[in-house]
């Protein structure tokens, strides 16, 4: 009896030692040498795997950083400068401070709501609706309102507004760009947050000729070029029947906002003008902002 137990223990013990040796040799032979830095960098990253950097996820971003030993061309938008500084410290390189950015929805919600020209009851997907027809607003360039951007946002920073045009929460937005990628009509753009969170942009991407664009939407950019003429910084270009403000040149003087005949240019973050009982002709800033509809997109009180 004891002999049998002994044999079994010996055989199993010998087998165990044999396999341990095999495993050790194989493990040595196929050892994956990984830079421990990758783990450290990955630890610093937010870990949302939003894909905003263009990599498959945070780990892939960390690998790319460590591989090139610098942050050139790599930026984790959600992490911002704080994370960039930490990574730079780990890698021992210097990093330029990026300008904070925010997603901007370039479509005017004023035209939608009850003014819709048709009812869409197909699949709730902008990517699909875009292949079917112009969308409920009748504008072939306008927001479709199915919320592909809302679904794409990993930070809960974008929500559907009352008029069916999405609204960005600038505080939560990390400018990862996932919403801009999800939008089939390229309405969402990443722009700089601007000084004191003040920014000016053309809230329309309609490339139709002026008269046609006006039929689609009362607030469409008609490419009249008035904004470009009035701009002191030459920041505005009119190309392909739509005006565009280069945020790198824009000083947010808001001359274009006043000039725009269709109120397609929006200003955001500026203090609401005080209500004046009798508007004086000398008043420079007040008349400009008085009629401008501030988009629901930002947390600014709408002045009527």
């Amino acid at each position, binding site marked *: 009896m004891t002999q049998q137990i002994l044999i079994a223990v010996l055989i199993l013990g010998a087998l165990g030692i044999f396999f341990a040796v095999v495993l050790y040799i194989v493990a040595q032979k196929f050892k994956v040498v990984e830079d421990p830095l990758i783990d450290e960098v990955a630890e610093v990253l937010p870990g949302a795997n939003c894909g905003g950097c263009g990599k498959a996820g945070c780990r892939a971003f960390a690998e790319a950083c460590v591989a090139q030993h610098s942050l050139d061309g790599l930026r984790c938008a959600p992490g911002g400068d704080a994370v960039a500084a930490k990574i730079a410290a780990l890698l021992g390189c210097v990093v330029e401070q990026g300008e904070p950015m925010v997603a901007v929805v370039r479509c005017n919600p004023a035209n939608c709501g009850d003014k819709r*020209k048709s009812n869409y009851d197909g699949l709730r*997907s902008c*990517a699909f609706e875009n*292949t079917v*027809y*112009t969308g409920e607003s*009748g504008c072939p360039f306008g927001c479709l309102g199915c919320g592909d951007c809302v679904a794409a946002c990993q930070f809960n920073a974008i929500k559907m507004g009352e008029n069916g045009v999405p609204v960005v929460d600038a505080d939560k937005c990390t400018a990862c760009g996932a919403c801009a990628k999800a939008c089939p009509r390229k309405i969402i753009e990443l722009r700089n947050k601007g000084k004191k969170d003040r920014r000016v942009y053309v809230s329309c991407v309609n490339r*139709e000729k002026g008269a046609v664009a006006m039929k689609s939407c009362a607030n469409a950019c008609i490419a009249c070029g008035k904004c470009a003429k009035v701009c002191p910084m030459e920041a505005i270009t009119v190309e392909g029947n739509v005006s565009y403000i280069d945020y790198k040149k824009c000083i947010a003087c808001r001359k274009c906002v006043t000039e725009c005949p269709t109120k397609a240019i929006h200003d955001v973050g500026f203090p609401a003008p005080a209500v004046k009982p009798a508007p004086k002709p000398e008043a420079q800033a007040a008349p400009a902002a008085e009629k401008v509809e501030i988009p629901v997109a930002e947390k600014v009180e709408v002045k009527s």
Partner: protein
Amino acid sequence: MGGVHPEENKISNDAAIEVMPVGKQMVVLMNQHLGAPATPVVQKGDKVKVGQLIGEAQTFMCANVHSPVSGTVLKVDTCKDAFGLAKPAVYINVEGDEWMESIDRTPDIKRECTLEPKEIVAKLKEMGIVGLGGATFPAHIKYSIPEGKKAEYLIINAAECEPYLTSDYRVMMEHAEEVCIGVSILRKALGVPNAYIGIESNKPLAIAKMQETARQFEGIIIEPLKVKYPQGAEKQLINAVTGRRVGSGKLPIDSGCVVSNLGTAFAVYEAIQKNKPLIENILTVTGKELPSQHNYIVRIGTTYNEIIAHSIGQLPETTGKVISGGTMMGKAVVNLDAPTVKGNSSVLVIGEKEARRNPETNCIRCGKCASVCPMGLEPYMFSLLVKNNRIEEAKAHNILDCIECGCCFFSCPANKPLTDEIRLGKNKVRAMMAAKK
């Protein structure tokens, strides 16, 4: 395999084909076919006659466009189509009704065709003939058989399995002889011994009429088909008539078959024998709530509003949707000021109640969609794969084989928009394949 039985609703069956008068202004879109738009060859101020070439096919996948009216070119610009999208178009102010001299307008039926197969195909191209079954595939490309492949069967689709549509039925009843001549011409172009005309057996009068006429022609066989939707779909029709199957990702010609619509055969007759380009559609105006049902010959470029005004005066108040095409595969028209284009087969008015989709609920895995799919696919799975962006897997499960017939959505007890999801998935798969190239 698969298929469904939607309510037939062929209520305009007995309405003889009438001729729709020409309006004051015509807008002719330059892409009325699958492929690139034709290039306008007229300018503002030019005088045009009926049948004159105004848009030329300059790329491979393209078809000629001819003027449906006589008059002066107002401008060459863009025009919003039925779905609100701007397309290049030629605007013509109608003056009189002067036809090109080459077009034979006599009512005589011309039987003899002396053209060689290659000449026939060249003439199809010249006359801007496209497939009138819905896809508007340029006919000259379909009838130019690629090298190394051989056509053995010519199949003419007269199943008209879509609910409501009756234009093909009326053509069979009124122009059976012309259709048979058109089929003979196509048979000659391909050099095949026999042509089969597939007709669903719920149209006994049409079958009798066609059988009687076909007896006078060599090599035309009328094939009564089982009634089910989508019997008229290319691959299903090939299977029903020849017993052959078209493999995944293959074209009908890979199985030795060429399929054309009955309307195309009629257009071919007019183009080859009468020199008349494709400038007219045969179109059904129908709907349960309409005071009268109609079938019309309509010049291309007539707007939906003009057709409605002439046929029924105005839309009933209860109208929910106006559809171009049948209820299964047709598309809702959002811009009634849009001109009709080649291949439009109906103006279908659906009431408010029927037009709405029922609210979507959860999939209960009943498998109905898979059992009715005529291509043997699994729509419920594509729905999940597309939702979760698993595009590679969707491709591996042959999502591109879907013919978008709508059977899955039609039969789904949870009202899931399966067909929409699959179409989105197909777009994503194509985008992925294009990105890889």
